C-alpha cells in the first residue's frame, strides 16, 4: 500500500517552501478543480483553463491565510466556485442567453465530487497496479485492449482485475469511513 499524506500535512509542507510539495498539491487537487469547472459549471474549455490557473495562482498566494490546513479542499471548492461564477457572468455579458447554473444543481455536483475525492484517496492508498488499471479504465476511458497493451497484461484478464481492484478500493474506503465515523 502507498504511504498516505493528509491534506493538512501537504499544505504544511507547501507553507514550509518544500519545492516538491507544491507539485504534489497541484497533482492532488487538479482533477477536483477541473471537475468543478467542467461538471459543476460546464465552462467552455478556454474559460475552464483560465479559471483553473487562477484558482492555483490564488491558492499559492493565499495558502498562508488558510485557517485550518484540514479545510483546504472546501476552501479550494469555494474559491473555484466563486471564480466560475465570475467567469459565467463575463460570458453572460457577451452572450446574454447564457443563464447562471442552478445553485442546487451545483451543490449536488460538488457533493458527488467530494465523494469521488474520498474514493480517489482510497484508490491512492491501495496503490499500483490497481490505481493505474482503475484510473485508465474509469477516468481515462481506455479500452481493455489499450490497458492490456500499455501494462503488458492479457486483455482477457482486465475485467477480472478491475473487479478485484474495485473490491480492494471498497474495502479500503469502508475502513476509512468506519475510522472517521464518531464512535
Amino acid at each position, binding site marked *: 500500500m502507498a504511504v498516505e499524506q493528509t491534506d493538512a500535512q501537504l499544505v504544511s509542507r507547501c507553507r514550509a517552501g518544500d519545492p516538491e510539495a507544491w507539485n504534489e498539491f497541484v497533482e492532488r487537487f487538479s482533477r477536483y478543480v*477541473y471537475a468543478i469547472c467542467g461538471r459543476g459549471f460546464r465552462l467552455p474549455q478556454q474559460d475552464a*483553463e483560465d479559471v483553473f490557473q487562477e484558482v492555483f*495562482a490564488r491558492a499559492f498566494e493565499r495558502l498562508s491565510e488558510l485557517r485550518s490546513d484540514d479545510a483546504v479542499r472546501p476552501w479550494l471548492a469555494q474559491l473555484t466556485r466563486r471564480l466560475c461564477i465570475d467567469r459565467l457572468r463575463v460570458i453572460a455579458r457577451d452572450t446574454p442567453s447564457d443563464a447562471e447554473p442552478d445553485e442546487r444543481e451545483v451543490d449536488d455536483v460538488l457533493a*458527488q465530487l467530494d465523494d*469521488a475525492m474520498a*474514493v480517489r484517496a482510497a484508490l491512492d492508498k491501495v496503490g499500483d497496479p490497481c490505481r493505474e488499471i482503475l484510473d485508465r479504465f474509469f*477516468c*481515462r476511458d481506455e479500452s481493455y485492449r489499450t490497458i492490456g497493451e500499455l501494462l503488458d497484461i492479457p486483455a482477457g484478464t482486465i475485467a477480472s482485475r478491475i473487479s478485484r481492484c*474495485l473490491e480492494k478500493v471498497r474495502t479500503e474506503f469502508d475502513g476509512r469511513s468506519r475510522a472517521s465515523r464518531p464512535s
Partner: protein
Amino acid sequence: MKIEMNGFDEEKIGRLLRLLPPAPEGWVRAAQELPAARAMLDELVARAEQDAAFRLQLRADLERAVANAGYEPSPFIVSELRRLLEAV
C-alpha cells in the same frame, strides 16, 4: 448483531471514479510552475522599478522585453506582469 452497510458498492465506486478525469497535462504543468513564475515576476518587477530604460522597454513591447531579459513570455507571465506593472 447489526452490520452497518456503507452505500458505496463497486458499481458506485466506478461511477464516482469516472467523475474525476485528469486535467489536461499542460494545465497541470503550468500550475506546478507557478512558484518559478512568481519568482520570475518578482525579479522583472524589481528590475522595472530600478531601471527606467527597462521600464520603457516593457511599456513599449512587453513580450519582447521579457524575452530579451531571458524569460519565456508565456500568456500567464505577460498578463500577470501587465497587471503588476500598473502599480509601478
